[in-house]
């Protein structure tokens, strides 16, 4: 044990006497290890961000979109095509408890752009017209006031819930509850409709590049008929009693809708019923591909680091071979030379590995901080497997390319090693 410490001491002295070489080797390992950690952390963080936003909505949510779609691709409505086949009669049929027993909350939704005016202030925003149960389906949290009730929704009462930023812009000094604002759709000739403010939604920030605080909520019927002037439903969201009943409920809904639309053949469906599991599956596929791509980049950074280590080791082979010749001439056995070079490689890769881990984690953390500052719910993920793999691979490169030429040189006659060019 004492000799080991002594050897380590001597070896550190040796390494310090060859600053440039030691530094470049360590740098190679740092690049490899830190690169892998940062890239893997980025991939995992991005995946967690995307999937987290989906699962936050709850895993017992079902969406119905008008228009046919195949299993894996997105429905046509996603591309902005307005399909008018989903109507309120369909939603009423789904509300039938005997047909769809596990559906607890069923909300119809239409969305559009609108100008909201208070006094001489007006701003453009988007509105969501829906039912009172929306608050439970989408986990809406209120900053102040209340969301409209099921009754208010059905009665098409002139009440409105503001997004946080909308409230902030129209009422910078607060006091908006009970005030009357006017909503007008600029793309048709309908007049302005007055609404009484009953609540302000909690601040949500930006999700999927959309500012969730720049919107308002109004009862479904008013939004559909009096603002958009349409008689169809853009999409329906349903909450089931338990996540386990999602699949049976989808089958129930599909049965009801086929009956409503007089569809005999599944292939002729003019609607798509999806649950979040499907969405998560699609997104997981996409983000997994992203992560694999990033993993590939991490691999490249490992190779870059490895080539750096390899180069510096090979460049110094002749100098080191002469050194080995000298050490042998002074009485070193091959065994001692191997130990010396192994110790050297272990120290270099160890120091490089530790710094690589520290720097990699620091950069990942800074990226997470930056992403959070930019408003993303970014989680700081560090993969221990990635760290172990990166340290293992770069250490192995260092040890192989440090040790292999040394072992070869140690087998030479001392004089041949001394005279090596």
């Amino acid at each position: 044990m004492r000799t080991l410490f002594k050897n380590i001491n001597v070896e550190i002295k040796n390494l310090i006497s060859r600053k440039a070489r030691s530094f470049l080797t360590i740098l190679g390992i740092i690049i490899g290890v830190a690169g892998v950690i940062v890239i893997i952390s980025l991939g995992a963080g991005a995946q967690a961000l995307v999937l987290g936003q989906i699962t936050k909505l709850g895993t017992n949510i079902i969406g119905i979109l008008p228009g046919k779609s195949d299993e894996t691709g997105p429905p046509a409505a996603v591309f902005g095509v307005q399909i008018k086949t989903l109507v309120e009669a369909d939603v009423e049929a789904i509300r039938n408890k005997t047909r769809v027993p596990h559906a607890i909350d069923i909300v119809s939704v239409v969305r559009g752009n609108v100008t909201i005016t208070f006094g001489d202030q007006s701003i453009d925003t988007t509105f969501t017209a829906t039912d009172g149960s929306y608050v439970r389906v989408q986990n809406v949290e209120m900053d102040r006031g209340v969301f409209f009730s099921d009754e208010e929704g059905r009665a098409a009462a002139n009440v409105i819930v503001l997004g946080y930023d909308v409230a902030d812009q129209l009422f910078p000094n607060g006091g908006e509850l009970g005030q009357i604002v006017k909503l007008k759709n600029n793309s048709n000739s309908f007049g302005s409709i007055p609404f009484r403010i009953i609540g302000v939604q909690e601040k949500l920030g930006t999700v999927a590049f959309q500012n969730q605080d720049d919107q308002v909520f109004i009862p479904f019927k008013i939004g559909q008929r009096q603002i958009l002037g349409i008689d169809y439903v853009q999409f329906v969201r349903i909450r089931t009693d338990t996540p386990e009943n999602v699949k049976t409920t989808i089958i129930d809904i599909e049965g009801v809708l086929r009956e409503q639309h007089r569809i005999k053949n599944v292939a002729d469906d003019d609607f798509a019923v999806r649950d979040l599991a499907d969405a998560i599956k699609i997104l997981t596929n996409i983000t997994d591909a992203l992560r694999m791509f990033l993993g590939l980049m991490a691999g490249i950074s490992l190779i870059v680091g490895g080539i750096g280590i390899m180069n510096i080791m090979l460049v110094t082979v002749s100098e080191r071979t002469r050194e080995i010749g000298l050490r042998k001439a002074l009485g070193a056995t091959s065994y001692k030379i191997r130990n010396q070079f192994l110790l050297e490689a272990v120290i270099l890769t160890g120091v490089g590995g530790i710094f690589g881990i520290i720097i990699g984690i620091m950069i990942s953390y800074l990226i997470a901080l930056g992403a959070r500052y930019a408003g993303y719910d970014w989680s700081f993920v560090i993969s221990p497997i990635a760290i172990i793999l990166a340290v293992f691979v770069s250490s192995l490169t260092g040890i192989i390319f440090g040790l292999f030429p040394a072992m070869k040189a140690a087998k030479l006659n001392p004089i041949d090693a001394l005279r090596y060019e």
Partner: protein
Amino acid sequence: MLIELKNITKEYDNGGVVTKVLKGISLSVEEGEFLAIMGPSGSGKSTLMHIIGFLDRATNGTYLFDNENIKDFNDDELAYIRNERIGFVFQSFNLLARTSVLDNVILPLTYSKKKDHINLATKALEAVGLGNRLSFLSNQISGGQKQRVAIARALVCDPKVIFADEPTGNLDSKSGNTVMNILGRLNSEGRTIILVTHDRNVAEHANRIITIKDGEIISDEHNSNPRKSQMIEDDQDIELK
């Protein structure tokens, strides 16, 4: 008899072309001798010394060191002999670069079982007049000082024989004289010195001179009046930079 060579040959095979460097050398060296091996370049004198000094192996022939046949030694045993029983001084010094004088001299001790490395190395450096240069780096001292460090390194494990391969070859005459003087003193203290040189003036420090030409010994003469250079004092530094 300390060293006994019988019909030693050395051949190099360069892609089918066999070069005979040593053509049957027989030689005996007694303990305490100061032997100079002379010869023009390419004569095989260095090869001969590398074989005697365990840095290379002969192609054929017998080599008895202290009455033991070195054919029976494995690589580790040869390493032990190089470490404990002989010391080597090279023409090009072969010090570890960017390493202190003291650490250079400690280097052979790290491969030995000896303890108290710093003390032994310091004593060896004092013996060559470099007691005041311990912490200097090997690239901060002059050529003559480097060679004296190399002698201290050869000396530090207290060997029976010191081999010197053109030890003055890279030095000016003043530094060369100092180095030869130290070797002469080590010989008078009872150590066997084997020296390779092409320079008659250097060879005349020895009390026996053999001459090699084309891989064969052509003369073996006793030098009854070895040359002496001026003595140096331990703390006197002749070749300050």
